[in-house]
C-alpha cells in the first residue's frame, strides 16, 4: 500500500451536466461550463465575424444578410410550431406587416431607419397578434391553412383597393448609412432574438407555453387561459418576423407586395427541417445552408430547383432529426479521460 494506484476512465463530456440535484444542473468545474458554452460561443463568433469576412464582396455580404433574415423567420416558425404547437404558415404575414409599417414610418413620418424598425417590430407584432386572435383556438392543419390565407389576403387587398402604394409599393425608403451598421444591426438583432427566445422557453412562462402544446386541457384545469398563453407566444414570434421584414426593406429601399410572398412562409419550414425542429438554433443553421446553396445554384439555371430539391430530400431522408439534433448528440458523445477519485 505505498503509492495510491491512479486509475483513469473515459466518460462523456456531458456527464457533469446531466447530474442534477433538485433543480439545478451541477456544474462542478470551469471546464464543464466550458463544454456547455463552447458551441454557443462558436455560433456567436461565426455570426459576429461574418460581416468582417464578407466585407470584400458586397454581393456575398448581402447573402449573409439574407441568411439572417431567413434565420429570423425560421426561428419564429420553429418557436410557434415546436414549442407552442401552432404550425404557422403566416411567416410572410409577419414579414410584410413589419415591412410596410417601417416603410410608412420612414417615408410618411420621417423616422430614421432604426427607429422605424423598432416601431414596426413592436406595433407590427401587436397588429399581427390581434389579427391572429380569432384563429388561436384552431389546431394543426386548420391553423396552418388559415394563417396561410393572411398574406395572400393582404396581397389581394392591396391590389384591389390600391391601398399602401398599390402594386407599386413604397420607394425611396432610407437605407442604412454604412455597410457596417447594416451588417451588424441585423446580426445583433438575430443573436438577440435567438438567445432571448431560447432563454424564454426555459423560464416558467416558457414552460407554460410548452405545456399548451403538450396538453392544453390540463393547462385549463390549472387556471391558465390557453388563448392568452397562445396570444403571448404569437406576439413573441411576430416580433421576430416583423423585425426581419422591417429590416429587409431598408436594405433595398423599397417595399411591395412581394413582402407577402408565399416562399417567405415556406422557406422557414425547409430551414427548420434541415436544421432540426424544436431547437431554435437548428433553423439558424438551416438558413445558413439553404441561402448560400440557393445562390451557388444560380449557375445551374433552370436546373437550380432540381438540385435544391435533391439536397432538401437528402437531408429529410438521411438526417430527418435535423442537423442540430445530430450535432448535439455527437458533441455529447465525445469522451474524455478523467481520474477516478
Amino acid at each position, binding site marked *: 500500500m505505498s503509492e495510491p494506484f491512479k486509475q483513469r476512465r473515459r466518460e462523456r463530456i456531458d456527464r457533469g451536466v446531466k447530474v442534477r440535484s433538485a433543480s439545478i444542473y451541477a456544474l462542478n468545474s470551469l471546464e464543464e461550463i466550458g463544454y456547455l458554452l463552447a458551441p454557443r460561443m462558436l455560433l456567436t463568433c461565426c455570426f459576429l465575424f461574418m460581416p468582417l469576412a464578407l466585407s470584400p464582396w458586397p454581393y456575398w455580404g448581402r447573402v449573409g444578410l439574407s441568411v439572417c433574415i431567413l434565420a429570423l423567420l425560421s426561428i419564429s416558425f420553429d418557436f410557434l410550431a415546436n414549442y407552442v404547437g401552432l404550425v404557422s404558415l403566416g411567416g410572410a404575414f409577419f414579414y410584410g406587416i413589419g415591412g410596410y409599417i417601417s416603410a410608412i414610418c420612414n417615408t410618411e413620418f420621417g423616422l430614421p431607419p432604426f427607429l422605424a424598425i423598432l416601431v414596426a417590430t413592436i406595433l407590427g407584432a401587436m397588429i399581427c397578434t390581434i389579427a391572429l386572435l380569432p384563429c388561436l383556438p384552431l389546431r394543426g392543419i386548420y391553423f396552418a391553412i388559415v394563417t396561410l390565407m393572411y398574406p395572400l389576403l393582404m396581397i389581394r387587398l392591396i391590389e384591389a383597393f390600391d391601398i399602401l402604394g398599390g402594386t407599386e409599393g413604397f420607394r425611396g425608403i432610407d437605407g442604412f448609412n454604412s455597410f457596417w451598421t447594416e451588417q451588424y444591426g441585423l446580426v445583433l438583432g438575430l443573436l438577440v432574438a435567438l438567445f432571448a427566445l431560447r432563454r424564454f422557453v426555459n423560464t416558467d412562462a416558457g414552460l407554460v407555453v*410548452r*405545456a399548451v402544446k403538450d396538453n392544453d*386541457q390540463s393547462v*385549463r*384545469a*390549472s*387556471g*391558465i*387561459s390557453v388563448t392568452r398563453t397562445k396570444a403571448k407566444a404569437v406576439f413573441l414570434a411576430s416580433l421576430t418576423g416583423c423585425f426581419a421584414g422591417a429590416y429587409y426593406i431598408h436594405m433595398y429601399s423599397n417595399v411591395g407586395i412581394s413582402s407577402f410572398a408565399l416562399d417567405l412562409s415556406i422557406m422557414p419550414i425547409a430551414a427548420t427541417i434541415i436544421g432540426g425542429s424544436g431547437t431554435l438554433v437548428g433553423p439558424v443553421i438551416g438558413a445558413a445552408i439553404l441561402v448560400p446553396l440557393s445562390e451557388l445554384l444560380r449557375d445551374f439555371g433552370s436546373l437550380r430547383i432540381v438540385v435544391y430539391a435533391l439536397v432538401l430530400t437528402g437531408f429529410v431522408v438521411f438526417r430527418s432529426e435535423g442537423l442540430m439534433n445530430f450535432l448535439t448528440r455527437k458533441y455529447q458523445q465525445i469522451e474524455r479521460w478523467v481520474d477516478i477519485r
Partner: protein
Amino acid sequence: MTQRSTEPILEINSVSMHFGGVKALDNVSLTVNRGDVVGIIGPNGSGKTTLINCITGFLKPTLGTIAFHGRDITGKKPHKVADMGINRTFQVMRPYFTMPAYKNLVIPLSSPRAKRVGGWRGGGRHGDRNTVAVDILEELGFERDSRVPYKLAGTLPTGYLKRLELGRCLAMRPELLICDEVFSGLSASEISSLVPLIEKLNAQGITMIMVEHRLVELFRVANRVMALSYGEKITEGPPQDVISHPKVREAYLGSEEDF
C-alpha cells in the same frame, strides 16, 4: 375529523346534461358544505365524470345551475373555474408527458391563482417553483432523493401518474378538490398510503368530492355519498344509509365482490 359546517360552498341545482338523445345527467341536485368529503358512486356510464365536467366548466349543462360560494358559475370557462379554487383530477390521466414529473407542477404553480393565493416562498423566482413542486411531490410519496420526481412523466407508472394528477391540483391550493377515480388502477398498498393523505388534506380545510368505484376506501374518508344511475340521482346520505338503499344495491352492487 374536521369540523364540518353547514355552510354550502357548492350548490348544484337540477343539472341536466344531454348529448343528443343521451341523458348523461338528469335533474341532479347536490349541495356540498365546507369541510365535506362527498363521495359519488354509480355504475359505469352513470354520469359521474359528466357531472364533474359540468362543475369545472369543461361542459355547459343543458339545464340547471351551479353556484360556488353563492356565485353562479354555470358555463364559466374551465380556467376561470379553476382560478376560483375548484380543481379537478382527470379520470384519464393528463400529465405533461414530455416534461419531468416536477415540471408538471411548475405549470399550476405559475398560474394566476397560485401567485395570488401563494402559500409558497418566493413569489415568482424560477428555482423556487421547482423546489415547491418537489415538496408537493414528496408529500404525495415521490421519494425526494430518488430519481422519480425528475423522470419524464411519460415514463412513470400509473400509480405515480395518479398522484401526479393530485399534485397538479394541490399546487393550485384548491378550496374544493374534485377527484375522479384516483384510487382505481392502484394497488391496495398504494391506496392505503393515499387514504391518510386524503384525510390530512381534508383536515387542512380542503373540501372534497370523490368519484370512486373502490367503495371500502371511499367510505373510510367520505362523510356523505351520492349514488347515480343512468344520470339520475338515486339517493344521498351517510355512507351506511346509501349502501343499504335497495335501489343502490340493485343498480350498483349487483355483484357484491367489492365487499
